[in-house]
């Protein structure tokens, strides 16, 4: 497949890197330095120029392109790129936008602007934050099979009752599969005798109740559920969507915004939230409003440094968990080391979404773990699959190590995979794959 990516920023570069192995990629950007850099770092064709102009697109080979991904930082540019591509070719068009109004227009018609697939940065980031709320110790949560299966990544907190237990001891849940343990740079496929250490990250796949139950087991002092008190700092678009999505889910979040006009606007738009107008770094205010009693704090201010500061302040005041929006992807790991529980990089989230959409091989749904160290796929079993009509222990023998069958759904039924489980056509399987076996295994499933 020939894919033209317009915009070689973080999102574009990341998508290009992900797709370069399997596809012919052309990257278009106006910035000469960036183009130059990509030419050497990735096995892609680069074109310097304005992606909205026909001559640039021609130069990039729009006639032969199967897909155009517009991923610049400017919504209108991305829309024009897609509309132009659609006007002169049959390429499938993907646009990244920040403004949810465009997304709403597109969702209403599915044809608007000549865009075939649209992803909204702010909304996606907010959704990935909200998924983590309500599940203690979770760093990442994704749903599969229409919500019947959840994949969650947990960090085992210090002093957790499961510390130094084996997986067999920790797993007290019928409908839960341990997929892997991530420790520093290594990835260990979970076995019954694998030992869980403090600060290990564990990937589990199961039905949502078991996942939540497991969360309570590893972090018993954090009660899960809807009574959670959430504070959102910063009325940015992401902060707004987090508060809105939480409100839809029955939470009553508090949102703190410094700008009076914006605060008023947010208060009008968010009937289920309590909006406060103040500087979130004002300690007196935070104490007066008992922000320290919150179970969950989302830092969504417009600067990474402020988000770090707010998260650290919140931890000091006693907030159980903090999530910070971090724009600079290099900071994510650093911030997580010094005190932010979960760092969310909006661009990474978008790149992930576009990549998962672009990936072929019949996967219905993909989750990417820890920026590409592993993937969780949902596949529908068809006649050609190695899994069909045979017990799992036989098919796994034909697959490399690093593959874990996490969950199976047959219609509305949830089936916990065991060695002797026989898969049928039409079953949905959620599979955990180590990064190094992804390309090898995906076509076989």
């Amino acid at each position, binding site marked *: 497949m020939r894919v033209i990516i317009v915009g070689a920023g973080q999102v574009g570069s990341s998508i290009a890197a992900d797709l370069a192995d399997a596809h012919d990629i052309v990257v278009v950007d106006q910035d000469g330095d960036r183009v130059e850099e990509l030419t050497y770092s990735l096995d892609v064709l680069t074109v310097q120029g304005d992606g909205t102009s026909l001559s640039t697109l021609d130069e990039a080979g729009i006639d032969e392109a199967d897909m155009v991904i517009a991923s610049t930082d400017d919504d209108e540019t991305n829309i024009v790129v897609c509309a132009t591509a659609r006007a002169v070719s049959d390429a499938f068009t993907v646009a990244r936008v920040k403004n949810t109004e465009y997304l709403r227009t597109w969702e209403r018609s599915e044809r608007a602007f000549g865009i075939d697939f649209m992803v909204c940065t702010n909304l996606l980031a907010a959704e990935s934050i909200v998924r983590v709320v309500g599940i203690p110790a979770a760093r990442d949560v994704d749903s599969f099979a229409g919500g019947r299966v959840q994949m969650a990544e947990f960090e085992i907190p210090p002093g957790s009752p499961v510390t130094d237990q084996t997986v067999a001891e920790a797993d007290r849940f019928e409908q839960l599969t341990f997929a892997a343990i991530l420790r520093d740079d290594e990835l260990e496929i979970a076995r019954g005798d694998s030992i869980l250490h403090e600060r290990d990250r564990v990937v589990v796949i199961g039905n949502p109740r078991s996942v939540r139950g497991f969360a309570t087991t590893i972090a018993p002092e954090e009660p899960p559920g809807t009574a959670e008190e959430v504070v959102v700092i910063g009325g940015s678009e992401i902060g707004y969507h987090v508060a809105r999505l939480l409100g839809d889910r029955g939470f009553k979040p508090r949102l*703190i*915004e410094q700008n*009076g006009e914006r*605060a*008023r606007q*947010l*208060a*009008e738009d968010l*009937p289920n939230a*309590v*909006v*406060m*107008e*103040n500087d979130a770094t004002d300690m007196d*205010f935070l104490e007066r*409003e008992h922000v320290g009693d919150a179970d969950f704090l989302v830092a969504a201010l417009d600067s990474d440094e402020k988000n770090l500061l707010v998260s650290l302040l919140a931890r000091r005041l006693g907030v159980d968990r903090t999530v910070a929006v971090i724009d600079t992807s290099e900071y994510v790991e650093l911030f997580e080391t010094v005190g932010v529980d979960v760092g969310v990089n909006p661009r990474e989230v978008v790149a992930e979404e576009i990549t998962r959409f672009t990936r072929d091989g019949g996967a219905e749904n993909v989750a990417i773990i820890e920026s590409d160290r592993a993937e969780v796929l949902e596949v529908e079993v068809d006649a050609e699959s190695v899994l069909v009509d045979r017990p799992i222990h036989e098919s796994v023998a034909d697959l490399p190590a690093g593959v874990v069958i996490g969950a199976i759904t047959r219609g509305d039924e949830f089936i916990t995979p065991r060695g002797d489980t026989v898969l049928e056509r039409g079953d949905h399987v959620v599979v955990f794959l180590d990064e190094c076996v992804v390309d090898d295994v995906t076509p076989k499933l």
Partner: protein
Amino acid sequence: MAIRVDYRASLSLVGTVLKYLAVPLSIPLVVAVAYGESVAPFLVTMLVTVAVGGGLEWLRPDPDLGAREGFLMVAATWLAVSLIGALPYLIEAHGLPGLVPATAPDSTLATPANAVFESMSGFTTTGATVLGSISLDAHGHGIMLWRQLSQWLGGMGIVVLAVAILPELSVGGAQLMDAEAPGPGIEKLTPRIAETARALWGAYLGFTVLEILLLYGLHLGGMAPNMDVYNAVAHGLTTMPTGGFSPEARSIEAFSAAVQWLIIPFMIAAGTNFALFWHALTGDPKRLPRDTEFRFYVGAMAVLTGLVAALLFVGNGVATFVPPGTTFDAGYLAGVRATLIGNVEPALRHAAFQVVSLVTTTGYASIDFNAWGPSAQYLLLFAMFIGGSAGSTGGGIKVVRWYVILKSIRRELFTTAHPEAVRPVRLGGRTVDERAIRGIYAFTLLYLVMFFVASGLLFLNTGRSGLSLSVLEAMSAVAATLGNVGPGFGLVGPMGSYLDFSATSKLFMVALMWLGRLEILPVLVCLTPEYWRQ
């Protein structure tokens, strides 16, 4: 730039409206002919209204209204219409000296103060009367119909009607309607204001016709012996404007339980925002039950009805002695007790009827609630202050204002504990502008201050003129006239009348009705010196 109120433009438009008043006057004229009564009251009034209207219109043939002129035009229209509307009553009582003999020489409407009171009470849909005997024998069918027709014209609003049919009001019509229509602000239903006005009048006319048909249907079905054609029309014309001028002396008590039950939903509809009916009829029927004000309005009536019905059922809500100055005797009271205590249907029916009648400011009575005990009566007094919905024909403070006030008080309590919280006041899905909230507070406070001051003045004046009136009676009379309700308690109860007040007291209440119908501000604005200053 020096801006002066262009009163000539305002008065010229008043003239146009007055001129067209001749059209509705032809209806009682025809009725009078049909019943073989004197046509002089209507014929003369038609001539006068055309002459005065034409004269005023001549002041300026091509009026161009600004915002300030709008207030004056609306306020003056209502005053002028009410003054001219009093003429038929006077002519009926006095005749035309040397030309036409008086047809009702004993009428209590013979004095100008009484005639103006009755007319203003009609047009403002108050329903307070100074008729000595409310009967078709003492007064002609034509005159009695004129009373009802004046209410019907006043209900949806004379100015709204004018906007609907006069092309010269297509610009500036929204301001005029805003100045006249009850409740804070108007809702434009269509791009053209004249169409909006026509839609509102259409819904109003539709409900009126439906009620008349159903009432007469009950009569034909044998369930309402007294409800002949004349009565059906008369009650249709006075229910929908929340007026309450029944041609029967005993109001709706004169009719069967079936009639009373039927009138209740029509009163509820009359007190509902007519824009909601328009939406319901143009494809959004769920808008009505979803509307916050409507739910609050129905909920408030349901709660009050429940309370009053319970009081009546157990007997606590029924008076134990005949209060002085009431219009009934001990036998009547015994009958009321026997009807209400321990009987579910009558207790519920009378409670619902009276609560709905007073909340919507209709002012009909299915029973003389003077025979009720103080606990039930105070609930009714409270009901008078709720008022109908914005955009309805009901008077009073209006449900939406109370709702916004309650919500903003809750907001104040919250922000006292959390000073940094930003909390817009929500009305359904929309947030209410802070300036609108201030306006609502100002109006409600003004209304209440006016109520207390006017109660004091009325009480003092009645004392001076030798009429003994209790404080509650004085307060209820003011609440009933300022809120365009009609009946109060005691002397001015549902079966009583305002006849015994002195002429000054009556003219004072005429002013209250005028103020109340136009929601005080348009009238008060015209009385401030700043309004007239350059």
